[in-house]
């Protein structure tokens, strides 16, 4: 428990501590469970690796992927779910699966595949944080990885073409957002008054969609209509990430 925990992840912008969903999930969970994390933001120097981010390093372990990092933190006694019942724990697992299956393809598409968004926002942002000449290669590789994932999981043979799946994945994402909004209702967090793993995952996936300014915004518009989800993101940002820039989040308070 005393070993220093270092997290290397992508940096923030638009009022968020990180623009990358998976990094944001880990950062939020660490705040909720009280784990002392030292955050190393990836920048233009050659220090640290860029693949497989977020990565947690301790004295003798290197852990990647959010699910594994969260498990590791729980084993170190940093548990944000200690007040949940068994059924709520089961619900958490189910809702995370729902997020990954229904919402993630659309988020990946909005950031990495939609041409307007990718070339005007995502690519310049990431390229400015990667040293040359890797900045010419890595964003393209991340974009192709995202497209690959979307097509392999949602595309239908024999015509694996992105146009056919676009409408389907956005429809599924909107349905998923509606389901989350119904589940959240009027409570402050998904399971009562304290945030848990599910809140971390929802925050991680929704906050970049909510805050980043894109030219093509139709999923963002749908999200903004679900005021309880926006309120959840704003509450988490204000309570747990207050030392970050607050100008943008205060503009969007819906209370």
């Amino acid at each position, binding site marked *: 428990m005393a070993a220093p925990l270092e997290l290397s992840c992508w940096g923030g912008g638009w009022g968020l501590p990180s623009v990358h969903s998976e990094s944001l999930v880990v950062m939020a969970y660490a705040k909720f469970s009280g784990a002392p994390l030292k955050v190393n933001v990836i920048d233009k120097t050659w220090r640290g690796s860029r693949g497989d981010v977020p990565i947690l390093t301790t004295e003798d372990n290197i852990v990647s992927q959010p699910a594994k990092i969260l498990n590791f933190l729980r084993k170190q006694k940093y548990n944000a779910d200690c007040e949940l019942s068994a059924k709520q724990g089961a619900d958490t697992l189910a809702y995370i699966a729902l997020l990954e299956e229904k919402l993630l393809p659309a988020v990946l598409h909005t950031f990495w595949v939609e041409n307007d968004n990718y070339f005007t926002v995502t690519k310049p942002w990431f390229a400015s944080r990667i040293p040359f000449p890797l900045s010419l290669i890595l964003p393209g590789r991340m974009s192709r990885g995202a497209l690959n994932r979307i097509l392999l999981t949602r595309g239908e043979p024999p015509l694996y073409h992105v146009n056919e799946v676009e409408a389907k994945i956005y429809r599924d994402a909107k349905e998923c957002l509606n389901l989350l909004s*119904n589940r959240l209702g009027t409570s402050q967090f998904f399971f009562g008054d304290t945030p848990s793993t599910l809140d971390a995952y929802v925050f991680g996936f929704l906050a970049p969609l909510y805050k980043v300014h894109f030219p093509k915004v139709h999923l963002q518009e749908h999200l903004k209509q679900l005021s309880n989800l926006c309120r959840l993101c704003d509450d988490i940002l204000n309570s747990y990430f207050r030392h970050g820039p607050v100008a943008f989040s205060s503009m969007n308070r819906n209370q």
Partner: protein
Amino acid sequence: MSLVAEAFVSQIAATEPWPENATLYQQLRGEQILLSDNAASLAVQAFLQMCNLPIRVECRANAEYMSPSGKVPFIHVGNQVVSELGPIVQFVKAKGHSLSDGLDEVQKAEMKAYMELVNNMLLTAELYLQWCDEATVGEITHARYGSPYPWPLNHILAYQKQWEVKRKMKAIGWGNKTLDQVLEDVDQCCQALSQRLGTQHYFFNKQPTELDALVFGHLYTILTTQLTSDELSEKVKNYSNLLAFCRRIEQCYFEDQCKGRLS
């Protein structure tokens, strides 16, 4: 199916009642069908039984290629063909039969979430075990998958499918998982299902829903399929309420048809 095609099918579906000669197509039961496809097919059969809709099961070697989406099972009703449990549930709903109408919004959200959990963890674990675990691939999968076809087609098709599945595993981050990690994920999933089921008869109220059909399809198939080792079925056997659940659905809906017995 594209959105326009789906809307069109729903419109047509709503006008005709369920015919007597509705058929479900899957691969050959004895020699060809694999664990994951068998689970999916059983889930659809259970769902249709729960809705009291008659269905005849036809086994064809090329069922996978006949299906509009490339996945089995698919049903042929009237002059429409619909594949996979999700679209089939929608199709049946358009015809006026639904198991989940009595649920409120929060329960519907939970049901969808748990169905995704089963698809995300159980189905992916089954695919991993069948196609990425060398022992199972060599002894069971390759031989079964290509069995209706002559040499060299049987080998070519099996390798092609294996390559496709491995590519998908890599894209979703399961490419580097070991078998033990996969079995642990299965255990976690079963634990979640067991906790959600608790002491109830079905997952929601006293009536079964499509979630019950899906869980039954997967768990029953895992319990009754002979693999190279029993580790997968042992994980499920740890949860007695899941075993009781499978037995109950088998007795209520499949007494006449199912020959397999749970041990």
